[in-house]
């Protein structure tokens, strides 16, 4: 039985975990397959009905570092944590990466994830120099922004539907310092935070805002902006940060039979969080700065077996106030508990299925219960009318109707996919649900 990280989609699945290339190629002989990385996605991109999931965890090797071009070549199953440890020793890092160490590079490419500062750095595809894709009907192909460009862009953010990424060459950046510093700027509203996010968008470390959406009235959305900077003293002798093992997985997340988050426990957690992140500057471990979820996995367990919903939407600047008002009023109407709120500034261009655009992304978590679906349906209506764009990998219940209305190139992606793979060898619950 495979389940998504949010607990929203689960199904019996055939899973293969090849540990060598011969077995890997044999594992793709099935009628329908889906490549699978760490299995931590909120949406079911790596499994589906009558689909064989092929786990790539054994293909986790770092194949070479080219100092001249500042790029590292890796197999797709390497985790961000392993790559971080290797690059750190060479004074390098990936500026664009999500906040958890167990996520694989293949998963980052497939979902074209964003990092701490998407407005400045773009999404993961921005640092993919090239990749090697395997499809049983086409063999092995090298793709880049200049070689097989369309297929490259359909693969980066294509959710594993064009084939299996075997290896990738990723551009790396010099780690400005082995020490980091977090600046906390308290904010009273999301709009106030959005202005700071915009003005601080050239920060190389990253910037995002945390909001307490569990408050009613004027306090709704209160929180702080977190600006990450690398320390100016280039402490080359700082030891590599210890990386305690993490055992978070989608199936283990639901180990608690009941939800421990309610209005009172959430209030206590948020108050404690706000208190521990008061105004000012504080040194922060580079590992903790780049991977804030590492060490904070307990949060996901608090939702219990039923799980949670996450929705992340890029809201056009002019629509932000209206969206927040809708979130607030619908949360009150449906008695929905918003357990987490976060915003980021986006200033890019969406292509095919890529989660990018111009505006402020608003991410919220809510426990999965009866009212949650009605609450989210109201947000969906707004998203369509306002020209906003929801993240496909964060929301496991997003419908084809919402997808088609918010991704203008959805049909172009379908055409590309059918031309490349008429038999549709690569499928998943996500692709079935979105009609891809």
């Amino acid at each position, binding site marked *: 039985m495979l389940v998504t990280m949010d607990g929203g989609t689960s199904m019996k699945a055939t899973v293969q*975990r090849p*540990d*060598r*290339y*011969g*077995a890997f190629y044999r594992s793709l002989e099935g009628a329908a397959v889906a490549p699978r990385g760490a299995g931590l996605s909120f949406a079911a991109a790596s499994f589906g009905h009558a689909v064989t999931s092929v786990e790539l965890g054994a*293909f986790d*090797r*770092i194949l070479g570092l080219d100092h001249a071009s500042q790029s590292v070549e890796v197999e797709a199953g390497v985790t961000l944590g392993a790559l971080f440890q290797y690059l750190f020793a060479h004074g390098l890092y990936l500026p664009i990466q999500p906040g958890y160490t167990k996520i694989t590079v293949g998963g980052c490419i497939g979902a074209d994830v964003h990092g701490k500062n998407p407005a400045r750095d773009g999404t993961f595809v921005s640092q993919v120099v090239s990749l090697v894709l395997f499809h049983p009907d086409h063999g092995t192909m090298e793709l880049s922004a200049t070689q097989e460009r369309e297929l490259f862009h359909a693969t980066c953010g294509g959710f594993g539907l064009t084939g299996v990424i075997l290896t990738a060459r990723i551009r790396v950046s010099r780690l400005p310092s082995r020490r980091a510093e977090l600046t906390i700027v308290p904010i009273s509203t999301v709009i106030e935070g959005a202005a700071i996010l915009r003005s601080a968008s050239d920060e190389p470390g990253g910037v995002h805002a945390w909001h307490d959406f569990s408050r009613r009235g004027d306090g709704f959305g209160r929180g702080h902006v977190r600006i990450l900077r690398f320390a100016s003293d280039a402490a080359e002798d700082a030891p590599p940060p210890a990386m305690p093992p993490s055992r978070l997985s989608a199936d283990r997340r639901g180990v608690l039979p009941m939800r421990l988050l309610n209005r009172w426990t959430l209030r206590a957690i948020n108050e404690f969080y706000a208190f521990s992140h008061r105004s000012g500057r504080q040194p922060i471990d580079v590992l903790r700065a780049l991977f804030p979820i590492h060490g904070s996995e307990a949060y996901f367990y608090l939702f219990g077996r039923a799980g949670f919903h996450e929705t992340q939407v890029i809201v056009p600047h002019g629509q932000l106030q209206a969206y927040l008002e809708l979130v607030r009023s619908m949360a009150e109407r449906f008695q929905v508990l918003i357990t987490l709120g976060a915003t980021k500034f986006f200033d890019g261009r969406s292509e095919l299925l890529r989660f990018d655009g111009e505006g402020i992304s608003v991410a919220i978590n809510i426990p999965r219960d009866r009212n949650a679906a009605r609450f989210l349906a109201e947000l969906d209506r707004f998203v369509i009318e306002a020209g906003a764009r929801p993240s496909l990998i964060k929301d496991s219940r997003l419908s084809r109707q919402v997808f088609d209305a918010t991704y203008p190139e959805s049909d172009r992606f379908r055409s590309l996919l059918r031309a490349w793979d008429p038999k549709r060898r690569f499928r998943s619950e996500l692709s079935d649900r979105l009609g891809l």
Partner: protein
Amino acid sequence: MTTVIFGASAGVGRALSRALAAKGHRLFLLARDGRDLEAQARHLRTVYGTEVAWLAVDAAQPADVVQALETSLAGVSVRNLLFPVGMANDQDDGLLPAAALSALINANLVSVMAVTSCLLPRLLEGGGGNIVGFGSVAAIRGRGGANVAYAAAKRGLESYFESIRHRLAGTDVRVQFYRLGYVASQLTFGKQLPFPVVDPEWVAERIVKRLDRDTPTRHLPAFWAIVGALVKALPWRIYRRLRF
């Protein structure tokens, strides 16, 4: 001085190559598929900066293995020989045809013996070293349901290691033999097994730690020694009824 790992592409062999590379060993990797070896060698060179060479061989063809090895290792000093090599067959229920039987016995037993015979003189001339063999708990007591020939080959291998340990007693070449329990691999993945499965990295860490010690035959994990003793002690009239 070079460490040879026969069966280095996956599982315990791959984990051993990482653990030994981390300790600065110069490595020579052997396995069937060059694609795996190439990737593994590049990883070890990139991450650990160690010298790594590799050779793709079919363990079911011992004579070819030895011939290729003699050519590739000409003039190379060898200090350690590790044999995490193995081949199993889903149809190994006692009725395998001769060719399949021959491949199983060759890969699990004869190739190990042949490579040892080929390289042992270098260990002796070079001032000593280690030879490490890997058995299986499947060979504790013969059973008819599965792994009939595989278990026979592994039991034979254990006898062989006992013999060369005896032969090399008093020299600087140490001979170690590990009976491995369930180790995570694509063969164990998804199976409901009656005992815990350990990661290859866990196994490799312990083997590397004990390298250069005069270690008698050991079970990894150690609790398998108790399981093995109990299985061996079962009276035949009970054992014959077991289906596992």
